[in-house]
């Protein structure tokens, strides 16, 4: 009963100086909105980085020879790749698996050579959403010494569709590998290596070029659930046929990039900390002003026998109400804005006046000017909890002041 009346008084007090209450609520709402906005953008970027990492290029799990990641030497191959692919695909959690061959090569259209990277793939296995040829396989058939070439690589070296490329490299025995290939098309790929130096050919052509049998340098696996990478890798490793190979999940394959993504959380909490500092100042200021305005009233209540604890609760409820109203408004606007933009995304390039979005690559990560904001329930709850806690902390000073008031002195002053 007492709490109910305290709550009613608190609500009424907030209406006494409506302008100040609106300002405090607005500050809290803007703070929550800023936190949710930054979180949504950061998650958008993190998702983009993550897709770039575990998408077509790295996958969720990789299989290769133990020395492959250090040496990247053409002769470090997985023999009997077809048999190994069958074993991998039989695992319940595996969605896709594909074999790949990589061979750095000297490339020439005429006399002048330049550096390129031959990537041998099976077009059928790479046509899924996470594959290297996602969406392209129907129009760009590989095989019979037809290759597709990355857009940036082609533009830089004057390669056009229909041209003949001479490739020179080192085969699996260390001898000279060389052959002529026809450019079937120039493609835009989500994989930086393909775009900047990739010459993509069929596995059969790559094996013929490099004198390989049923070999592959790498087997890329995509899972139904990426979080299952470690247990699935352990399962595969327990198979005697695969036991001598290195089988690693994405967390082990790209730990440095993972750290970069984890920094998103750090950045998010830095923003939340700044918002909370601003909220503390706003709420404490509002409550102190409100308290000083009502100092006679508090003195009167205390002299009439009102418990100082009830006055403390009154201040606490007023501050919490302020914070809650601000949080509801801030969260509502934040969720609304993210919902509006999450499908179409936000293109910074277009906002800056460019006609089209751009993409840049850094250490295999493809970063785009186009970001799709993504908000999680935990972000909203974290924001609400943090700002509510802040509101409570902000009342400590006014509460301490009120409970130490001497009623007689206050009345006299």
């Amino acid at each position: 009963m007492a709490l109910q009346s305290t709550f009613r008084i608190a609500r009424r007090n907030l209406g006494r100086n409506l302008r100040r209450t609106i300002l405090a609520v607005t500050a809290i709402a803007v703070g929550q909105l800023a936190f949710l906005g930054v979180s949504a953008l950061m998650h958008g970027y993190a998702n983009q980085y993550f897709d770039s990492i575990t998408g077509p290029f790295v996958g969720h799990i990789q299989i290769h020879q133990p020395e492959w990641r250090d040496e990247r030497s053409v002769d470090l191959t997985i023999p009997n790749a077809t048999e190994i692919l069958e074993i991998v695909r039989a695992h319940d959690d595996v969605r896709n698996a594909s074999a790949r061959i990589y061979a750095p090569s000297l490339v020439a259209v005429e006399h002048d050579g330049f550096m390129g990277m031959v990537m041998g793939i099976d077009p059928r296995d790479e046509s899924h959403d996470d594959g290297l040829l996602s969406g392209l396989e129907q129009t760009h058939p590989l095989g019979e010494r037809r290759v597709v070439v990355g857009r940036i690589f082609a533009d830089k070296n004057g390669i056009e569709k229909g041209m003949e490329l001479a490739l020179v490299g080192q085969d699996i025995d260390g001898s000279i590998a060389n052959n002529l290939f026809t450019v079937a098309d120039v493609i835009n790929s989500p994989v930086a290596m393909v775009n900047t130096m990739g010459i993509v050919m069929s596995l059969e052509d790559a094996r013929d070029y490099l004198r390989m049998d049923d070999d592959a340098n790498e087997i890329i696996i995509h899972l139904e659930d990426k979080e299952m990478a470690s247990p699935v890798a352990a399962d595969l490793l327990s198979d005697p046929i695969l036991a001598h190979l290195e089988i690693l999940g994405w967390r082990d394959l790209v730990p440095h990039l993972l750290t970069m993504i984890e920094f998103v959380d750090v950045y998010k909490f830095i923003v939340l900390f700044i918002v909370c500092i601003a909220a503390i100042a706003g709420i404490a200021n509002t409550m102190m002003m409100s308290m000083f305005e009502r100092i006679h009233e508090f003195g009167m209540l205390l002299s009439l026998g009102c418990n100082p604890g009830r006055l403390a609760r009154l201040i606490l409820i007023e501050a919490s109400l302020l914070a809650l109203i601000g949080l509801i408004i801030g969260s509502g606007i934040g969720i609304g804005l993210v919902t509006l933009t999450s499908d179409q995304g936000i293109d910074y390039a277009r906002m800056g006046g460019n006609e089209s979005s751009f993409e840049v690559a850094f250490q295999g990560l493809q970063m785009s000017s186009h970001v799709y904001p993504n908000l999680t329930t935990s972000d909203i709850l974290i924001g609400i909890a943090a700002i509510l806690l802040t509101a409570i902390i902000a009342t400590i000073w006014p509460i301490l002041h009120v409970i130490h008031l001497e009623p007689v002195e206050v009345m006299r002053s």
Partner: protein
Amino acid sequence: MYWKNNTMNGNSIRCITSVVTILFLACIPGFSDESLKREPPEVESLLDRLDELYESSGTRSTMEIVIVRPRKTRTMELKSWSKGQDKALIIVQSPPRDAGTATLKVGDNLWNYLPKISRTIRVPPSMMMGSWMGSDITNDDIVRDTSYRDDYDYRLTGWSDDPPGWSVELVAKPDLVGLWNRVEFIFSPDTGLPVLARHFDRKDRLSRTMKFENVKTIDSRTVPTLVTIIPEREEGKQSSFEYKDIEFDVEVDDGMFSLSQLERKH
């Protein structure tokens, strides 16, 4: 073969055309001076002779290269022709699958001829640090002409016990473009020929070691006929170049060193 930036560079040795030359051309008759054993030699004369090792109006040779890798060892037989320091042609004789593959050097340019596809491809500057024929020498080793006497500051650092010989340190002059910051040569006290060279990169880390062995007298020249290159920090790798036959100051037709001739011949 073309892509691995290994740690070698040509500053140290005017290789391949000149590996054809450097390793074996040396040998000024009569240099085998007993006085070398007793008192420190004059560094200038050692370096002059090292630089002169490359010089021949025309050189023809047959060479065997053994490229050792952690999982495989590959042997190639080559024939080479060179004229002065600017022109050289190397043609692979065996194994059969590589036979006919040729490397042509004219000045600072390097071309590879691939008989299977009848194409001649110029090696771009960006790939000069790449491995030549999958060995432990770089394309740059083949192209670069360096004078140890003129391009390096040098000093005799004393007697070396392992291997025995006079040690000379060469530090690249500031304006010298190349991989090596420093080269240490050890010269035989008997012949004045190099027996060992250590190459240090721009961070002054030992990058590769070259051993000069099997000294023989050919055409009145005394030269090492086996050079082994051992890269540092690359376990299980080395390349050996052994001269089976070499002729100095022979007539070599200028026409050999043209692209059209190269393509016509095959």
